[in-house]
């Protein structure tokens, strides 16, 4: 028995299963709650109640809904490509669970603190597209095929700005590396930056400035990442692959029951991951009031059971703050869904290639330039933040009309000469004259048959 407990292979296998079950469990619960929350948010936005009857405020629906999907018949039409059709949900869903490995919920709730977390996450998120394309092809349905093709084009294109928008954050971590400026011990290389989620979260909690979240240094980066995340997860306004009004249900058209539920779970899991990554990279990860080990060790004690309790409380706080920030970002997902219409397929691609990618590249160049300025660390960070915020505001307020250009290839509104037409003309003047006359005689042209006899 003791051999078993010290056997590395055994422990690795156990760790693997624990990690897998945690990821699956968290994902399922998150997806269930998200579906419920989505209905409630949509209901709130649309001036109605949403789920109401089962349980307090309809909360039982979160459980009943997946149960219903479990009990549904798994329909598969005869002409589908059977292998593709059956493999697709698994291939779509597997990377979603795997991507949970890298997310740092708290210092000790990280399933696998890999040094190359961002690369792994990006790689996994681009596997999703395979599943969708297989579903689109294997369904042998024209709507599914178009949905799958759209999705392939969309997800491959939006990978680029998604990665490029993260680069800014990695660059900022490079100046915060310990050898360069401070005595931070978790970053191992100076001037290279880190692509590990845990390191990036730690970099946002400098001893001198515990609230220096990277959203302050890279607000534009957060917005760009979030937009690309919307596209990556096929959420409104980029939900073209499953555009209900055009393609019935896109690549999901032929799916039902548990297979459909896996796609659904995967989509909501993707949303959760995008929010979690935004939280870790831009919103300080698990930092927040109370999420400080020193504080609790000071209150309870350093050693023995007291030390253990302090660790537990600290981790609970850390996880709470991480999930709280994640939840806020998820609510923004739902809010956007309730507000915005959907782009057209070609507009979507134009928006990516002509607007997002140049902007992210520009952001990288500007950030690199600012971080090379010989003005000291604090000044560098402040200037980066200010310039980035200015870029964001410029994009939002000055270039917002230009997004119309990139989307439609036409002049923006303000550059067009609008013809204002007066509604008054001959026919209307006649009607106005009629209005002056109090009661006209019964009009003969109205009240008599046109041709009698």
């Amino acid at each position, binding site marked *: 028995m003791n051999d078993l407990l010290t056997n590395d292979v055994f422990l690795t296998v156990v760790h693997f299963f624990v990690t897998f079950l945690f990821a699956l469990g968290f994902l399922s619960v998150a997806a269930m709650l998200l579906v419920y929350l989505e209905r409630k948010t*949509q209901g709130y936005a*649309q*001036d*109605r109640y949403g789920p109401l009857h089962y349980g307090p405020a309809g909360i039982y629906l979160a459980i009943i809904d997946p149960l219903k999907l479990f009990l549904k018949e798994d329909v598969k039409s005869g002409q589908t490509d059977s292998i593709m059709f059956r493999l697709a949900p698994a291939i779509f869903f597997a990377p979603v669970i795997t991507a949970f490995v890298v997310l740092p919920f708290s210092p000790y709730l990280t399933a696998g603190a890999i040094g190359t977390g961002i690369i792994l996450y990006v790689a996994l998120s681009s596997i999703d597209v395979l599943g969708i394309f297989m579903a689109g092809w294997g369904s042998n349905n*024209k*709507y599914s095929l*178009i949905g799958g093709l*759209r999705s392939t084009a969309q997800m491959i294109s939006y990978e680029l700005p998604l990665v490029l928008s993260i680069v800014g954050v990695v660059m900022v971590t490079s100046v915060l590396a310990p050898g360069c400026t401070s005595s931070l011990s978790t970053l191992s290389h100076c001037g290279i930056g880190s692509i590990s989620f845990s390191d990036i979260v730690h970099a946002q909690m400098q001893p001198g400035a515990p609230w220096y979240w990277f959203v302050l240094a890279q607000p534009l980066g957060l917005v760009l990442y979030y937009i690309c995340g919307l596209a990556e997860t096929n959420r*409104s*306004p980029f*939900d*073209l692959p499953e*555009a*209900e*009004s*055009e*393609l*019935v249900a896109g690549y999901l058209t032929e799916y039902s029951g548990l297979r459909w539920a896996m796609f659904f779970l995967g989509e909501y899991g993707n949303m959760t991951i995008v929010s979690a990554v935004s939280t870790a990279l831009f919103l300080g990860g698990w930092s927040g009031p109370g999420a400080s080990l020193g504080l609790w060790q000071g209150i309870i004690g350093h050693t023995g059971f007291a030390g253990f309790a302090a660790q537990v409380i600290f981790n609970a706080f850390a996880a709470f703050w991480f999930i709280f920030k994640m939840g806020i970002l998820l609510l923004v997902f739902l809010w956007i*869904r*309730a*507000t*915005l*219409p*959907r*782009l*057209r*397929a*070609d*507009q979507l691609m134009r928006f990516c290639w002509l607007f997002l990618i140049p902007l992210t590249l520009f952001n990288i160049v500007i950030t690199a330039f600012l971080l090379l300025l010989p003005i000291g660390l604090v000044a560098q960070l402040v200037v980066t933040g200010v310039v980035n915020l200015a870029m964001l505001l410029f994009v939002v307020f000055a270039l*917002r009309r230009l997004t*119309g250009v990139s*989307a*439609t290839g*036409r002049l923006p*509104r303000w550059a067009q000469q609008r013809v204002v*037409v007066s*509604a*008054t*003309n001959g*026919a*209307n003047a*006649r*009607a106005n004259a*009629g*209005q002056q*006359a*109090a*009661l*006209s005689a*019964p*009009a003969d*042209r*109205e*009240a*008599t*048959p*046109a*041709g*009698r*006899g």
Partner: protein
Amino acid sequence: MATEATFRPGTFVDEGGLRSEEMILNMGPQHPSTHGVLRLVLTLDGETVINCTPVIGYLHRGMEKIFENRPYMGGIRYIDNADYLSPMLNEIVYAMATEQLMGIEPPRRAQYIRLIVGELERIASHLVAIGTYGLDLGATTPVVWCFRDRELILDMFESLSGHRFTHNYMRVGGVMFDFPKGWIQNCEKWLDVFEKKSLPDLEGLLTGNEIFEARTEGVGYIDPQQAVAYGLTGPLLRASGVNFDVRVARPYGAYREIAVIPQIRQEGDCFARYRVKMDEMRECVRLIRTALDRLPGGSICQRTPIALRPQRGETYASVESARGEESIYMISDGSEYPYRAKLRGPSFTNLQILPELLRGNKIGDVIAILGSIDIVLGDVDR
């Protein structure tokens, strides 16, 4: 109905010897956004539409034949179902045609009531059109807001006629019931809320929306000559800059006393059609207010014989329905039944331009353009 042999996809071989094939996509009749049971046979090259053949008739109920087998008064109940989003306006045109055959004129109060309920119905219909248009473009919220406001109109109709949807309210020679107690105050209150709250909310959600503009501006352009040549009417025509409104060109009923300002835009694209509908709703509110202020007293229905037997003859009556010129060509042979009642549905005429507009557009625009034409299949198939 077109046969399947018509829709054989073309095959092409390019210089490299790569074979490509057109794809035939049957959109509808069971499709969430064909606004009923329209079937579009789209020939696609990738996402681009090469050709489109609308196939209609899935909602054909033989309405014109039913009219011939019902007494004049009985047809009113059936015409409700023609353009089922604006039944009041349908009833008005049927009642008007019969009145013209009978040679009677409804009392002035009845004409005003017809204007009020007609304009309310126009608002209700435009609300559905705009709400579902938002839904077609992927916005889920406007449709619920629109239906919320429309519900209150239907509530008013229910208290007035007893029915929410197929009202059966018009009578030959007038209307069935007078306004119940408190109806007018209720209506005025609703108009205030609608104009001050609902319309600006809707505008805020759609009109200024960057994505909505990108989806609709410049899409589905109809130039004025084309619009006239296809015989388009209603908001579709006025959005192309042609000033034609039956209420203005051939004023009927209370429109002879209350002037309508036709809402016209020059752009001729989907966005202009949306804006025309929004502007028309404001105009409707103004018309209803004016009519309520000037509402005359007196009787609401002309006395008519129980069995209507108009003289031999024929007539043509038309009203401006929410979708265009809704009219009836009615022939009487002197019996209790119409010899022929031909219904001109604006949706049917407006739908004809669809294949012309769709060619060369993307699949996403198919829905955007179809939604902006705003058809009701009950009116197309009858």
